[in-house]
Every structure is written in structure tokens, then in C-alpha cells.
């Protein structure tokens, strides 16, 4: 008897909830809402992106721009946030997917409901209206190498580091670098494509080995975010700062000391702040049903004249020129 009445109670609650749901008025949104969802919140990269979203909000008071993201690095958690935002009824989603494949189904449901979907760092995402990339990977790799060659005086031994051989963008970057180095016959590539696994310590050990093996090495081009720190430390400890050149992907804040000491020649990166603003700008264009065509100006530095191509699915692939190369003299402009 007890159990039965309990179940009636629960049933009653459920029915009440359902009923109140059906009569619950749908809140009318007066302003379009652009919700940015990042891979994980609370890390410097996406905190920096948040400043971009806030800046966009300030510049465009006629939309509501917000950023959220999971507290743990789990695609399932990001998925739930996206789902709740869809249910909440946002106008547009700007997503930096943790794992593009896992959220395909949910993004499709969002698009079916008429929500504008923009992604970033996911040029293989099929269910999106537009994917925004900061730069062309080949151009970026070549630009890193141009800087390296300049520092090396266009001659001498050099080598490359990648996060892992399976990392598509890293391989694209070093391959473009090698292509550029071919212009300088005196540049000699030795032991290329060392795997760093984005581990500064392991990279440090590896770089020490290379410095011992090739005492006359002149340059390093690295790819993963922590590589410059590992290689830079090895160069610094060997007393070779300023004599051996190091150009690679890295962030200004962690690299600051090594840039100052001259162990790192230059770092390359893209600014998540600008990427966040660009995503919101694209979302807004799509909400207003404006055409996004080749060469359009998104009104964000680095995205003044974007290339628009067909993406992996039916959507667009928008490529900006948002790469930043910073050295000792300029890194302070981008402290994050």
C-alpha cells in the first residue's frame, strides 16, 4: 500500500510537471542570443577567448553574447551544455568542439531547429553553417620558417618538432616549413619530425640530445604549444641563447622568460580573443541572412579579408589571416 501511494505521488508530480510544461509560456527573446561554447572553461586560452566575446558584446549591444564551457575536458559534458542551450532557445551557437565527431548529431538537431551554428578549430565538422579558422595551415608553417631562416642567416642545420606524427595540423606546418627551406640551399634539415607529445620535459631531454648530436645546429622549428618551452630551456642551459634560433607555436605568457633571455627567437600563435570575436561576427551575419562571400571584412583584426571556401559538409569554411608572430620586442602586446 505504501509503495503504491508513493508511486501515485511520484506519478502526480510527473504529471503536474508535464502539465505545467505544456501551459508554460515560451519566453520571447527580444534580442538574438549568440552562445559561445568552448572546450573547457577556466584555462588561459579560453579565458582569453572570453575577453573577445565580452568585447564583441560591448561593441554590439543589440545582441546578447555569452560564453560557457564544461568544467572538465569531456566531450559528453560539452554536449550537454550545447543541448541545454538549444532547449533554452538561443539564436546562434558558436562552438569550439572538444571532439567534432561526437557533437555532429546534436549540431544537426540544432540546425534542424533553425539555430545558426558556427564552429572553430574544426575544419572537418560536417553539421555547421560555417567553420572559422584563424589561418591557412600552410601559410602559417611557411611563415614560421621564414622567420627561422631569417634568424639563421639562411644557412645551417635545422630540425623540426611535432606534437605527434598523427597530429594533422602539426605535420602540415612542418611540411610547409620544409617547402620554404628549400628556397635556401644552404639550410640542411637534420633528424626531422621529432615527436614531443606536447610535454615540455620530454622535449627538453630530446632537444639536449639533438644539441649533443649536432653541436653545429642552428635552428629549431616546433609545433605543439609546450615545445618552445622545452627546446628553449635546453638552448638556455647550453648557453646558446641567441646563437641557436628557435621559432615555434607558443603562448606569450609562459614563453616570456625565454623570449627575454633570447633562447626563443619568436613564437607563433593565433589569438583566441580575435577568434571568439570572429565567430560571433560570422554568427551575426548568418542570423541577419547576409551573404558571407570571399574577401568579406569581419571587422576583427586578422579577419579583414577572409577566404571563404566550401567546408567539409554543406557549410562554409572561413579562413582568416589571424596568425601572430611575436618576438622579444612585440610579445608584450599580447599578454595571455
Amino acid at each position: 500500500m505504501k509503495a503504491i501511494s508513493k508511486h501515485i505521488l511520484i506519478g502526480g508530480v510527473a504529471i503536474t510537471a508535464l502539465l505545467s510544461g505544456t501551459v508554460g509560456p515560451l519566453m520571447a527573446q527580444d534580442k538574438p542570443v549568440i552562445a559561445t561554447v568552448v572546450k573547457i572553461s577556466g584555462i588561459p586560452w579560453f579565458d582569453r577567448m572570453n575577453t573577445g566575446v565580452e568585447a564583441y558584446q560591448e561593441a554590439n549591444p543589440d545582441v546578447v553574447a555569452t560564453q560557457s564551457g564544461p568544467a572538465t575536458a569531456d566531450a559528453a559534458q560539452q554536449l550537454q551544455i550545447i543541448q541545454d542551450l538549444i532547449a533554452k532557445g538561443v539564436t546562434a551557437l558558436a562552438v569550439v568542439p572538444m571532439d567534432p565527431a561526437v557533437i555532429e548529431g546534436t549540431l544537426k538537431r540544432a540546425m534542424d531547429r533553425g539555430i545558426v551554428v558556427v564552429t572553430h578549430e574544426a575544419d572537418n565538422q560536417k553539421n555547421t553553417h560555417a567553420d572559422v579558422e584563424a589561418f591557412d595551415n600552410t601559410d602559417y608553417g611557411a611563415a614560421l620558417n621564414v622567420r627561422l631562416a631569417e634568424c639563421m642567416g639562411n644557412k645551417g642545420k635545422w630540425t623540426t618538432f611535432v606534437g605527434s606524427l598523427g597530429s594533422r595540423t602539426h605535420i602540415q606546418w612542418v611540411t610547409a616549413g620544409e617547402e620554404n627551406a628549400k628556397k635556401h640551399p644552404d639550410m640542411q634539415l637534420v633528424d626531422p619530425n621529432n615527436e614531443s607529445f606536447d610535454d615540455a620535459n620530454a622535449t627538453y631531454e630530446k632537444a639536449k640530445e639533438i644539441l649533443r648530436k649536432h653541436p653545429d645546429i642552428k635552428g629549431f622549428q616546433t609545433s605543439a604549444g609546450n615545445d618552445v618551452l622545452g627546446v628553449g630551456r635546453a638552448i638556455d642551459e647550453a648557453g646558446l641563447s641567441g646563437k641557436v634560433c628557435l621559432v615555434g607555436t607558443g603562448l606569450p605568457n609562459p614563453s616570456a622568460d625565454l623570449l627575454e633571455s633570447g633562447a626563443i627567437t619568436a613564437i607563433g600563435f593565433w589569438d583566441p580573443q580575435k577568434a571568439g570575436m570572429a565567430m560571433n561576427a560570422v554568427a551575426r551575419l548568418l542570423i541577419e541572412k547576409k551573404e558571407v562571400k570571399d574577401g568579406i571584412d569581419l571587422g576583427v583584426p586578422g579577419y579583414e579579408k577572409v577566404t571563404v571556401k566550401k567546408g567539409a559538409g554543406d557549410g562554409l569554411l572561413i579562413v582568416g589571416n589571424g596568425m601572430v608572430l611575436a618576438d622579444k620586442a612585440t610579445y608584450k602586446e599580447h599578454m595571455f
Partner: protein
Amino acid sequence: MHKTGEQLVMLVVINCVLLAVGAAISGGTFLSVFNLQSMASQVPEIGLLAIGVMLAMCAGNGGIDLSGIALANLSGVLSAVILSSFLSSSDSEMAFSLAFMAMTVGVGLAGGIINGLLISKLNITPILCTLGTQMTFMGLAVVVSGGRATTVGSPDLLSRIGNDMFLGMPISFLIFAIVAALIAAVLKFTPYGLWLMLMGTNPKAAVYAGFPRTGIIVGTYALSGTLSGLAGMIIAARNVNVKFDYGSSYLLIAILIVVMAGVKPEGGYGRVVCVVLSAIALQLMSSLLNFGGLSNFVRDFAWGLLLLTFLAVGRYDVVGFLMPFKGQLKSSAPSPQAPKPNN
């Protein structure tokens, strides 16, 4: 006995409060049919895993199943890789869907039996055994898929399970509700249910009383594994793709749900209906915070707070102490009004 009723009432009250708060802060959108459906479709994955953990916990002797989400991912990945090698999900939709469903559940069952045999035959402590199998399952899924996401595709039947509604309720949620009801019935009305709870209360006495210990343990973990397989199927149906590291945060959330539902960590007691309500409460709270645009770190904080509250409720008569209007609640809830100095 009335304590358990208290837990149930508490869960119902919390659910109602969360719905009301949600309605208030969102101006009603929170209670829109679409959001209720959206939330309901998010519950099954974690809910099924939580029921599995509950069963393992009830078995006593430190019973727990840490391998749940890893097994769910393995069942999805393995089925997708093997099936798509000889069946196309877009050409033979029906056959693929049925084979996929059977295979995910089958892999889950097999994984659960392995857990059960290791624990009962080799006498490995459940927490260590399932930690080991968790890594094994995850590693196997990495090897089979090469570490990449595996595409299942959206064949008709499977994609309907993941996306469609029946009588206004998501099909995945209905599956979850039916499975939960079945397990509740099994626990309540079959000798297995009684054996499980009694064995959890006192394993030694159970052995001397001639309970089939091995059978009960293998059966329990097999059931838990099957639920993982089912969760794997629903994940694949909803997400189109499966990956080995999906839902890595689910492990702790499943345990949180179970503890919040008043399942005794030392074994011998647990109710499915409480687990279901507790899973729904966590879902409501997390959606609520997303609606309110609050940081996800606040969510972790709120969950922790909720868990501590429930532990306090389980240990002490906090409800009576904090809620002077408890009398009204009690009268609507059918638990007996017995005095409780002995608690």
C-alpha cells in the same frame, strides 16, 4: 524503514523545487515541452550507468562497478567497427540497427560476466577488479578504433531510438524507464533480489545460509554490464559517432547519483526509483545552471553540496530538524509517522 521513505520524499521535493526554480528564472522556458524532452533525453546514459553501480553496491563487500562508461564506449566502438566492416549502415538500415543493438548489449553482457567471474572466482576486491577492467575496456576500444571517433551513422531504427519521441517522450527515456521498472521488479519480487540484498547485508551469513554466492555476483555484474551496453547503444544512437573517451566524467557522476539516492555504500540496500529520481535531480540542476548561464564550476559545487545534504539526511534526522513543515510533507507521503528516537 521510514528513513528510506524520507529519502524518496526528499528527492521528489528536490525535483519539484528545481522545476519551480527553473520555471521562475527562465520565465517558463524551462518547463517548455521541448526542454523537458531535451532533459529527458539526456538522462538515460548516466541513469543506466548509475543503476549498474547501484546493483554492484548492493552486493556488498565493497561492491562497485567502475568499468561502466568504459564498457559502454567499448560496446559502441566494437560494434561499430565490426559491423561496418561487412554491413553498410546506410544501405541495410534495419539489419544494421538490429545487429548493432544486439551486439552492444551482448558486448556489455560479456564484459559484465568477466567482471563478475573475476570478483567471485578470483576473489579480487571489486574496486580494484573493475578499475582494471575499466582500463582494459578503454584500451581495447582505443586499439580497435585507432583512437579516433568511429562513425555509426544514422540508420533509420537506431536514429529513431536516439532522436524520436513516442507519446511525447523521448524513446531513449522510455527505454530507460522500462529497464528501470524491470530491474526494480526483479529486485522486489524475485528470490534474486532478496538474495542480493541479504548477501549485501551480511556476506558471511549468506554463504552459511547456502546462497549461490557466485551466481549472485556474476548475475549482478552481468546485469550492470548489460546496462552499460544499453547505455553504449543509446550514446551511439544519439551522437552518430562513438569514441573511447566519451563521458570520462560519468564515472564519478554515476557514483554521486547512487550515493544521493541513499544506496548504502556498504551494501544491502538500494532502491531503483530513488536512483532514477536522483539522476533526474542532477540533470535538472545541471540544465538549470546552464539556463541561468552560470559557470560549470558552480555546478560541481552545487552537486557537492547536494551530496553532502543527502548524506546528512541519511545519517541524521536533518529533515525533521530543518523543516518545521515536515508534517505536511509526511501526510502527503505515505511513510509512517512513527517517532524516531532510535535513529
